């Protein structure tokens, strides 16, 4: 697929809404309307910090009905690859940032009889977009959000902006909550959406499956970067004739891009399948959500945006 070009966005507003959360309101740098989006859409920012480049995807928490603005909320993750720290420290009102056209890997089902949303921490952001949409539809919904005690007030304020339905804020660990009871008592035709830290999503999804939820009614979105780091290794790009050192704090895809090779990629979170790459030698450590268990076991292809090498060296068909 061709690249439609990028969007130049100006930060209209930037504010800290909690010690670690920064909210950005973005508008088109030329004031033209932004592309339409739907609930669950994300925006991938391309940030330039001197020679370093970050490409971070954020859920669009709100889009103005006239497409004049998008809103994102960024949690500062000090030990991440650096994109969120850069946004917190260097991006403020007036800054121009580059972004891809919005994409959507976490859309709402059009056929659900009820939507059950379960969020954790900053995983609230796609659900803010959901709530804005759902309040105009007759489909019932229910949101349960889990957060740290000290962020209860912040999330409470974010959620109060969405009216209607059942919204439950839990300033506790999901393990302290009776998930089984919630998942056992949903009406037929309910779709479950979960967004939050990996371990949180795994728990919710595993609980749902163990209570008989079919896979077609389970939806989850992970944040790109949750799996960034790991032991350093060497990637050999056979067709390009390059040997790349992948450090512990960089993804394989980022290291490849830094070397000047631009393989196709999209979500950068192991979900879309765009960056699937053939493995010629070595064993991948799979961290994606795209390949099947059989494909993981065979180890002949890998998603270079999140997966790494198990050993010290891997040879790719790139």
């Amino acid at each position, binding site marked *: *697929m*061709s690249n439609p070009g990028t969007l130049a966005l100006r930060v209209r507003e930037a504010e800290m809404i909690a010690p670690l959360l920064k909210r950005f309101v973005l508008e088109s740098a030329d004031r033209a309307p932004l*592309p339409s989006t739907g609930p669950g859409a994300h925006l991938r920012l391309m940030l330039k910090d001197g020679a370093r480049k970050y490409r971070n995807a954020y859920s669009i928490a709100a889009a103005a009905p*006239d497409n004049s603005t998008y809103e994102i909320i960024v949690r500062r993750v000090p030990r991440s690859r650096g994109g969120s720290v850069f946004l917190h420290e260097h991006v403020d009102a007036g800054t121009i940032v580059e972004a891809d056209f919005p994409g959507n890997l976490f859309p709402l089902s*059009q056929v659900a009889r009820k939507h059950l949303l379960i969020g954790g921490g900053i995983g609230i952001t796609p659900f803010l977009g959901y709530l804005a949409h759902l309040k105009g539809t007759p489909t019932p919904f229910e949101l349960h959000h889990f957060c740290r005690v000290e962020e209860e007030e912040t999330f409470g304020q974010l959620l109060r902006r969405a009216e209607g339905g059942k919204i439950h804020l839990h300033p506790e660990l999901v393990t302290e909550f009776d998930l089984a009871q919630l998942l056992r008592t949903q009406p037929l035709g309910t779709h479950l959406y979960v967004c939050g830290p990996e371990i949180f999503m795994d728990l919710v999804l595993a609980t749902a499956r163990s209570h008989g939820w079919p896979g077609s009614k389970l939806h989850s979105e992970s944040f790109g970067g949750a799996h960034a780091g790991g032991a350093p290794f060497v990637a050999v790009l056979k067709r390009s004739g390059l040997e790349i050192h992948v450090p512990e704090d960089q993804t394989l895809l980022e290291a490849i891009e830094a070397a000047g090779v631009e393989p196709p990629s999209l979500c950068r979170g192991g979900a879309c399948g*765009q960056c699937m790459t053939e493995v010629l030698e070595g064993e991948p450590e799979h961290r994606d959500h795209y390949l099947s268990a059989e494909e993981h076991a065979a180890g002949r292809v890998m998603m270079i945006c999140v997966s790494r090498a198990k050993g010290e060296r891997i040879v790719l068909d790139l």
Partner: protein
Amino acid sequence: MTIAFKPAETFHDDFTYRNSDAGILRFPFPFGEDAYMYSVNIEPHVPAGPSPAYLHAFDVDEHYVAECRERARVLALDPSRCKVLPHMMTAQWDTLELIMESFARDYPEYFSLAKNGSTWTWINRPLGIEDKFTFGDASTLPYEPFEYITRQAQGDFTLQDQRNDNLFVDGGMVTTQADWSLEFDIGMSFHEWHAPVPLAHQIGVFDRALKFLLRLQQAQPVRRLNWTMTINPRLDTSPENYPVWGPDRTTVTPENLPEKVHLRVELQTLFRLPRSNAILFGIRCYLASVGELARVEKWRKRLHRVLRDLPPELEGYKGLNRYRQMTIDYLAPFDDGAVLSKGPQPDQASL
């Protein structure tokens, strides 16, 4: 850009549809080589290509007014040609937005769209339409949004909902189809509605195409061409109307062949819709008679070679059995065997 619309053309009974010289030269001729075989011919739908038909998201040509009138005629006889399942209302608005914005951007002399909050004013000059409505409120339009806007566009459209890692054809406006029925297919999954296609399933074409389409991205539409042949310039070759058009195949003679036998090309486009995450599939039908195409030196030679060497399975599937040899015999005297340039472009600027 000025388009000389031909509003009185007909696609039935007296069949007065014709292409102008410019219309012939802009025909999206589908054969880039002397032989034709199935291939994965999906490419980005970008404003570039060997014909002006590729330059806009939705092509508008000299047949626009006549084709919209033909659609209205078919719908009056058979309203079931437009159907959208209830859960596709968001996709209906997505379609209306995409077509209106594309038309207004690409053909500002003919279409305009003004937005004041959610109050939109749409002007379609060729059809004499001006409507003010509330985006998102179907009661403010004379039809549901999908039917409203596709009555004002050339070619068929279907809406695909994406769920369970599959696509379901959950809506459509289908009045210019090559022998398939929306009413029969509606609600089917990707493999179900493609089931009648021979050979392609076994070689995994549909598995790969589905995986590709599930990842289709907003603002990155794709396109492909398909082709068949039709007797008379008839857009509505539906299974429902087979008794009307099926017997046409028996009426071809060497004398009437250049006017009667038409190459039918579908410019198929696929757009990811932003609000619903559905896919809009456009199937734009172009017709040119063998006599019209024979006025282009390269095309008359190439069409001869393609038809002459067509695999027999394809002849049967496309329904060409009764008149393929007659068409080859008509074109053969024009073909001196000269080497033709690669690609489908006509290689001449006038006729």
